[in-house]
């Protein structure tokens, strides 16, 4: 176990260094001048030159890279965003709670969808068409589901709100940054309900592809488990099919859907860009889209590093969860 954690930690740092190097090299290819971007189009060249010196852009490349690594690993500094003129780390911390809240909600949605689809297809004889739902869900581009949700559920039928985190202006901004939780802490259940409603549509959109993927993995994994001897034994003891699944098969089939869930986190992080853009959700996805639009690669790199680290950590946790769920999996 200790060896596993150490290896994983070493891997994390290694991947981060590689990612840093990759994007640092990419930064050199950029057509835009970060110094000019920082001072605006109308400023004279002397102001730009001063900014260039301030940002260290006049130094040789290896020094710039050294400086970047030094700032990153020794001070947790991701550099300064040319768009917001603020430390990228601070920007990300500011935007992170909104995204985390959305991702957590999306994962919950995905688990529900995955369980319903897999168990439905397995246990209900009339539910064979679920296979088609699975295929369709795996084929829909994320912006199609998002746009249809906006158009129908928000705009046409007014069932759910579709823009931003809250309809109210004086929402609390702390302490957790999760609007649903903060509202409850502030003793405002109505605001919390409003926040949940705003959360629903983007979370559904984001969670659907993951739910479908997890559902597929769980289903095929369950199919295999149900052929095992011990399941036959359980059946012969007179348990219903539902009881067999609940008491025996589910736990032993958890490994594949769990690793699928871990992998899908990567997809969620990419889809976050589109979902947050479509639903005006003020998190790191929107931050990245805005940074992309202004060639603020420092910010894009910062997001990639932070989410990349999160992705690796989550997948390590998934492996732990697999070991807990299924004793046959060793680390």
């Amino acid at each position, binding site marked *: 176990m200790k060896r596993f954690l150490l290896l994983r930690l070493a891997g994390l740092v290694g991947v981060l260094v590689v990612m840093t190097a990759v994007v640092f090299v990419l930064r050199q290819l950029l057509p835009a001048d970060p110094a000019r971007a920082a001072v605006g189009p109308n400023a004279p060249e002397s*102001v730009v030159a001063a900014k260039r010196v301030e940002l260290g852009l006049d130094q040789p490349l290896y020094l710039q890279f050294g400086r970047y690594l030094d700032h990153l690993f020794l001070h947790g500094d991701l550099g300064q965003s040319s768009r917001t003129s603020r430390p990228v780390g601070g920007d990300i911390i500011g935007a992170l709670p909104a995204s985390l809240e959305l991702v957590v909600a999306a994962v919950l949605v995905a688990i529900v969808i995955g369980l319903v689809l897999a168990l439905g297809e397995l246990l209900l004889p009339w539910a064979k068409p679920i296979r088609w739902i699975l295929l369709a869900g795996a084929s829909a581009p994320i912006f199609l589901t998002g746009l249809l949700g906006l158009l129908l559920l928000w705009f046409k039928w007014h069932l759910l709100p579709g823009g931003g985190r809250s309809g109210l202006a004086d929402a609390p901004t702390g302490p957790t940054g999760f609007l649903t939780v903060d509202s409850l802490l502030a003793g405002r259940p109505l605001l919390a309900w409003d926040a949940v409603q705003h959360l629903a549509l983007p979370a559904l959109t984001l969670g659907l592809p993951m739910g479908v993927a997890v559902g597929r993995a769980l289903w095929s994994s369950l199919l295999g488990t149900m052929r095992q001897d011990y399941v036959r034994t359980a059946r012969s003891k007179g348990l219903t099919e539902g009881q067999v699944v609940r008491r025996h098969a589910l736990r032993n089939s958890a490994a594949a859907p769990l690793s699928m869930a871990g992998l899908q986190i990567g997809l969620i992080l990419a889809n976050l860009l589109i979902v947050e853009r479509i639903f005006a959700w003020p998190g790191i996805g929107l931050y990245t889209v805005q940074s992309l639009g202004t060639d603020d690669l420092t910010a894009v790199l910062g997001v990639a590093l932070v989410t990349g680290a999160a992705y690796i950590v989550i997948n390590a946790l998934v492996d732990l969860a697999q070991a807990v769920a299924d004793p046959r999996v060793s680390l």
Partner: protein
Amino acid sequence: MTKRLLGRSLLAAVLITELVAGCTAGGTSGTQTGTTNSTGAAPDTSLKTALQTDIATFDPDNNFEVAGLGAILAVYQGLVAYGPGTTKIQGLLAKSWTVSPDGLTYTFTLRDGVKFGSGKSMTSADVKASFERRMSSKFVLNYFLAGVASMQTPAPNLFVVKLKSPEPGLLDSFCSPWGPKIVGPDGLGTHKAGDQSAAWLTDHADGTGPFLLSSFVRGQGYKFDRNPNYWGEKPAMSSVSAKIVPDIGQQVLQVQNGDLDLVQHGYPFTQLASLPAGLQVEAYDDLGLEMAFINPTRNLKSAAQRTKVKAGLNPAGWINDAFGKYATPAKSLYPSAMLTPAKPYQWPTASSVADVAVPPLEIGYAAGEAGVQQRVADLLISQLGSVGIKATARSLSDAEPSNFAKNLNKAPDIFLAQNNPDSADPGSQAGLFYTTGGGLNIFGYSNPAADKLFATANATVDIGKRNALYDQGAQLIFDDGGFVPLADVKDVIVHRGGLKNFGTKPGVPWNVDFGTITR
């Protein structure tokens, strides 16, 4: 750009709003707030609007963006300002001023009774401190005061600026939305912290305007409450909220759905003719001329080729499809609100240049303006095709154009933009775009004859003579095909709930005046 104002003076009103928002889908809460009014609660004096981008910094000496200008100008004021709907210079924090005959000394008499949001009174010392801060090399807008030699405060209500050389455009630059603003002693003194308050003023404010910056949540939105110490007429709105909604499509949906009171900028022109019931349009002129920058180094080296492109760009053929009734063909290389040309520009006809060969062209536009420019580009591609020129278009990062000059052979052949000059002075337009070495002369265009005329104009104090020289220089550039003016495009506000008195000014693009707006 979305600002969201929700009255919260009455706890009861908030509770009612929340109840309503909680009982129905949150998406309709805006409409429901309106219903609350008709049932007898206090009139809704909050304004909800949106911004497409974050306000990077609220510091008036560092913010060069357009999107959040309205918010900054609701909090900070300068000595002078353009009057509503005009480019005429009026007093603001200065009630009057004199200029010495040599054009070197400006003496401002400050308005009495001006107080900052903190309650402290404004004196000439505050003005001087603000100007000194602006002149520091730390701040990107310092070039506004680059010509200042010295400043004096002979009395608490007198402020004197001495220049190194005459600057006929100085007062215009003071009227610029990016021009010098007066920051209060709290902002400059209490929170100085060794960085001239640069950190504190990024997300706090201390100004003399009708509103206070009461909440600044990066990436999410801003809130402004009425300034109880405001020296002027009390604004009708008790609060303004502006949340960040980067996608204009989302803003459109939100204003149609009642989640926003107005879309300040960027509402698609294509949809103005068929607005849903309850939405209204307010259009006004600004100084952002729709213009095509021509790259003279890559595929359009000869004047004949540029003439052929000019024929293909002629706005008469597409302007209606792009903007409907909200634009007119450009009259000159200056926005119509800035200058009227002495003689109309001559557009070449396609037949006169039929035998000139032009290679396939690349059109670029800034991503930040993609909403408008990608349609214009699509239309231009279609029209260029009709004169036998193939073209493609792509959006570029907003910072990319300033780097074109480094490798003109990789830059696009045509760049489309509606740039806003700093002020309504034609010199600011000519200096920025058309002069050799100008800050936004992105393709490094150079026309020595025009440069000469502009140089003479810059040193001429007589407004009529000045403008004539700027006009002549631009004519030369148009004839050579260095820059092609396309359209005077109106700025359009789409709003609901019968809003009035937007206080728009040509020199302050994309933004309404929160202080004057009423319902």
